[in-house]
């Protein structure tokens, strides 16, 4: 292990700054909720400062790439015999990438929020939560052992809960927050069980020790390691909204749009991908689990894309798109292309945050317009938009960049990262045909992605405007504080692909080489397939072709001109309705799980077992028997002294008799 550079010792500051921001803004929310300048200064300032420190730290990593992670131990957290948990952070190449993504995107979104949330009465509370979120996210990516990571893991879930339910006065929002938290908790259960198993088998929970010991302890493909990784992956499905625990993410759009951009697109939901990449040794040693990860990822990628086809809510489309893109990331890490997964994670953070923030600008201006005229229309419904590029030219252009990146149009970032994943999946195909199926699922998903993204752009920005006659004059471009971050993110969406260009292009696979010290252990067990240059070129062309077909198809099939506003739109039928209602999965969960459990708790457990059987029959039954005996006894007491005397004398005589006998 090489010497820790002095710059890395500043890591604690990256984590502590957002926490300090939370504390200060939390205090502001109670004592000076209207001091918006100060709140913005603190809220944004800590993030910018954290980003700056992160740059310093990452430069140190770049200057002297560590062979093994640098561990910074701060204090002993849970010392209990052989369980010696420290509160420790670790810096290595993987956490460096995550550091840049998290602090960078967060800083942009914080700046954007200054404009977006400017008029909200809960401004201070909003920034406090947002800062707290960043704090937990950083703990998540920097934690040096599973429990510390779990602190961040659940902490971001908490902030997600608080921010989804930020406008808590609406029951829908509060419900959505609660749903997100509980769904995440189901995943966390898996995480917990995985930690128990890991501790049981390896006797440690520190990343370094566990991963170092894993090859000696576990047998490749053994039951234990499979169980551990599947349990970990259950945690990932909760946090990263994969089948079957994905339903919370679309509902989570109830939160403010920057929150959706930060938490539900760029950072928190990618934690699962990060976890798989971090624990790559474990997953690589369990081929079945890896296949499950890849399969679930591919399936989710396609499945979520089909739902996105028919949604009308602009944020829901982007949300399902996020679910779908997360599926690609899992496909990547599932086939052993850990660097590709992280690559897509990074590019996705840029273009999806961009999409969300741009959508936020659209929603805000529509919202203002409807507010100004007093009409109650849905500001998020595509059917109420149309032709917006005339009113919001900047936003439209920037959103097109994000959309194209998402579709995977060369040479934007999304093209390279998505193709990278698909290519590597294809490369595994010669091992098992299953991977060709995964690749096919992913490819179809990509086609659908191109379709729904084009649909979104066409309906929102092109064709005639359907917002309303009087509202039209209130539509205007967002202020610079909101468009500025969009520009930065758009640059990222365009250029981020450069960090990991395919092998056939110059500067090839820089990120993969950068992550080599972290992923090489996994690479020992899950050997990536190799593709010839010709195949690689073919796949690149195919990807570009798919994107083009999807876009052109959408452009031809959809007719924004004949679309009616939401209020006048006819009801959907058949398969469209099924898609619109998201395959009724929420309803199925509700009917099969939630309601029966509530019914069981109320009627059977509480009212029958608790109140009736235990309390009524057993406990009070005993009391009733005692009372009955007492009642019978009391009837014997006539209160007649004479009777008592007779009995008393009789008793005396009997006693005397007994004495005489002896």
């Amino acid at each position: 292990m090489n010497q820790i550079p002095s710059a890395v010792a500043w890591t604690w500051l990256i984590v502590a700054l957002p926490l300090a921001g939370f504390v200060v803004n939390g205090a502001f929310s109670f004592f000076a909720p209207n001091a918006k300048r100060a709140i913005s200064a603190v809220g944004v300032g800590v993030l910018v400062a954290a980003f700056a420190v992160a740059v310093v730290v990452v430069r140190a990593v770049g200057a002297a790439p560590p062979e093994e992670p640098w561990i910074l131990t701060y204090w002993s957290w849970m010392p209990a015999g052989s369980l010696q948990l420290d509160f420790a952070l670790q810096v290595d190449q993987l956490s460096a990438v995550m550091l840049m993504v998290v602090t960078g995107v967060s800083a942009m979104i914080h700046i954007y929020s200054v404009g977006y949330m400017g008029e909200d009465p809960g401004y201070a509370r909003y920034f406090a939560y947002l800062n707290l979120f960043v704090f937990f996210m950083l703990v998540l990516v920097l934690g040096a052992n599973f429990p510390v990571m779990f602190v961040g893991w659940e902490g971001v879930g908490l902030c997600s809960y608080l921010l989804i339910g930020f406008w808590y006065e609406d029951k829908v929002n509060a419900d959505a927050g609660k749903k997100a938290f509980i769904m995440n908790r189901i995943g966390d259960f898996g995480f917990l069980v995985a930690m128990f198993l890991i501790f049981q088998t390896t006797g440690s929970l520190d990343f370094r020790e566990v991963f170092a010991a894993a090859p000696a302890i576990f047998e490749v493909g053994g039951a234990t390691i499979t169980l551990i990784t599947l349990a970990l992956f259950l945690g990932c499905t909760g946090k990263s909204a994969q089948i079957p625990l994905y339903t919370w993410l679309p509902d989570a759009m109830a939160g403010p749009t920057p929150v959706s951009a930060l938490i539900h697109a760029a950072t928190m939901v990618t934690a699962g991908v990060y976890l798989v990449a971090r624990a790559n040794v474990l997953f690589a040693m369990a081929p079945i689990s890896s296949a499950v990860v890849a399969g679930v990822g591919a399936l989710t990628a396609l499945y979520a894309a089909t739902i996105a086809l028919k949604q009308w809510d602009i944020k829901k489309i982007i949300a399902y798109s996020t679910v779908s893109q997360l599926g690609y990331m899992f496909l990547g890490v599932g086939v052993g292309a850990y660097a590709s997964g992280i690559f897509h994670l990074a590019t996705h953070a840029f273009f999806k945050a961009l999409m969300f923030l741009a959508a936020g600008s659209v929603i805000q201006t529509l919202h203002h317009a409807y507010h100004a005229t007093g009409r109650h229309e849905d500001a998020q419904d595509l059917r109420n938009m149309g032709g917006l590029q005339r009113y919001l030219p900047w936003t439209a252009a920037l959103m097109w960049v994000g959309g194209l990146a998402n579709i995977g149009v060369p040479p934007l970032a999304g093209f390279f990262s998505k193709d990278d994943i698909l290519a590597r999946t294809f490369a595994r195909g010669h091992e098992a045909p299953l991977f060709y199926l995964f690749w096919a699922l992913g490819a179809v998903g990509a086609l659908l992605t191109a379709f729904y993204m084009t649909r979104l752009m066409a309906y929102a920005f092109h064709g005639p405007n359907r917002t309303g006659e009087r509202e039209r004059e209130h539509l205007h471009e967002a202020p610079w504080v909101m468009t500025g971050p969009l520009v930065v993110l758009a640059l990222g969406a365009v250029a981020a692909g450069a960090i990991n260009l395919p092998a056939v292009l110059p500067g090839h696979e820089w990120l993969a080489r950068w992550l080599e010290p972290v992923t090489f252990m996994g690479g020992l067990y899950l050997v990536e397939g190799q593709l010839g240059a010709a195949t690689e070129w073919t796949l690149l062309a195919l990807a570009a072709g798919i994107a083009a077909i999807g876009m052109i198809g959408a452009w031809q099939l959809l007719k924004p001109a004949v679309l009616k506003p939401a209020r006048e739109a006819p009801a959907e039928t058949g398969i469209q309705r099924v898609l619109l209602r998201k395959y009724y999965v929420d309803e199925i969960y509700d009917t099969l799980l939630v309601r029966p459990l509530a019914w069981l708790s109320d009627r059977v457990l509480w009212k029958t077992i608790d109140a009736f059987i235990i309390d009524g029959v057993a406990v009070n039954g005993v009391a009733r028997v005692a009372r009955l005996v007492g009642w019978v006894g009391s009837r014997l007491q006539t209160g007649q002294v004479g009777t008592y005397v007779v009995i008393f004398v009789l008793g005396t005589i009997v006693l005397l008799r007994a004495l005489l006998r002896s």
Partner: protein
Amino acid sequence: MFWLFAALAVGGALMCITRRSPVASALWLVQTLFSLAAIFVLLDAQFIAALQVMVYAGAIMVLFLFVIMLLNLGRGSATDMRGWTGRLVALALGLLLVTELWVLVRSPLASPLQLPAGTLSRVAQEQGVVAVISDSLFRTYLVPFEVTSVLLLAAIVGAVVLAKRRL
């Protein structure tokens, strides 16, 4: 001598429990008590006999009579005797008790405990009647004696409290 007083005592007791008027009952009881005092003398317990006359026949019975008079119960009202069943029960239980006690009386006394006949009267002549009792009373039974005095005090207070019309 003994049998005469015994007969008087039993007769008085019998009359006491059968008279309708409380006053008459009380007076018959006085007769029994006096007879008992006589029997005590015959049993070498002159001091107790004197006490019997003073405390029982004198103090206690006077108290009873006082109360009876105070409550104006002297006039024999309707009998307070129980009905035939009650009488039969009383009779039966009384007889049963007598039988049992009779058996008890017949049982022999543990011989080592017995003093030779006439010991007590001899001792009484040597030391005086009271001295025999007082010796035992103020040595062996000093604490009970003192406790008794407290008991009497408590009884006085209690009686006063109970009998007062209003506290």
